[in-house]
């Protein structure tokens, strides 16, 4: 099987995990904003694929790496990468 091709992601590093958003996949539905347990996902100034606001986090250090946002994204536009333990 062909590997999924890499796309441009906007990344935000935090203590536990980094928040990576793919603007060419994000449709700006906002489902992730509601499902974040620590309420750090907000509308971004970057635009998604339909020219609507994409999302970003306002304090990535608060992220608990639960991956709820990655799971509820219907377009797989979010990817959470856990920071490797040092």
């Amino acid at each position, binding site marked *: 099987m062909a590997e999924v091709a890499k796309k441009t992601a906007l990344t935000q590093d935090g203590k536990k995990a980094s928040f990576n958003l793919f603007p060419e996949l994000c*449709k700006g*539905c906002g489902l992730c904003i509601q499902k974040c347990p620590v309420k750090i996902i907000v509308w971004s100034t970057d635009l998604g694929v339909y020219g609507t606001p994409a999302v970003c986090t306002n304090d990535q250090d608060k992220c608990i790496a639960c991956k709820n946002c990655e799971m509820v994204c*219907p*377009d797989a536009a979010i990817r959470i990468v856990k920071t490797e333990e040092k």
Partner: protein
Amino acid sequence: MTREKVALAPHMPKCWNPDTKPHKFCPGCGHGLALKMLGEAIDELGIQDKVVFGCDIGCSLLAWDFFNVDSVQTHHGRTTPVITGIKRARPEIIGIAYMGDGGGYAIGAQHLVNSATRNEKVTAILINNTNYGMTGGQMAPTTLPGQKTETTPYGRDPKETGYPTLGPEMVAAIAREGAYVARGSISNLRQLKKYLKKAIQNQMDGNGFSFVEVLSSCPTNWRTNAEATWSFVEKDMAEYFHVGEFKVPGLKEEK
């Protein structure tokens, strides 16, 4: 806040066709979530080369190029018999019929009922978003009492139009031993994936008909924002449509 640009592979199920992403569904549509869980279920079972995926007319037809699996797009309501036919001709494949509530409970109700009665060894997945999404949000058999749609501007009146169809309950009542019937919801995706996996596994074991209804969202036609969308799926819909397993095949007899 600094946002660096990096090259990274999106975390998609392997059986998705990445060239067709972003997919054609509306922002916030539950089809994407249901198909994501179905994709993960197919990946975990390792059956990508055996699956034949059939989609109905309606919003569900937008999934025709969604997966890197053999796909067929059928006449309206005829997804279950088409997949049944393919399964009968080629019993080694795994047939998945994917339809909306119009294709399963309205025009395709006879096929769903008869396939369940005959206990065909196929998996039917029905997405319930309480309206006809593609044509602009008209009343469907699953529209909730009092819900406003294009054709029920004052809310659905059960006295005139009856009560919403309870599909899994109906299928569980007519299906024979060996059938698997469940209702999942996009508000509990881990549970939904478990149900979808069990439904496909049931077909692979040759037990009988497998049917999973998925409570889904339609923000475009409900005219809801993300918060109201979740609240409608989790509260209003879950109150009428109970999530759970309705029929689980017992232990199969030893040969």
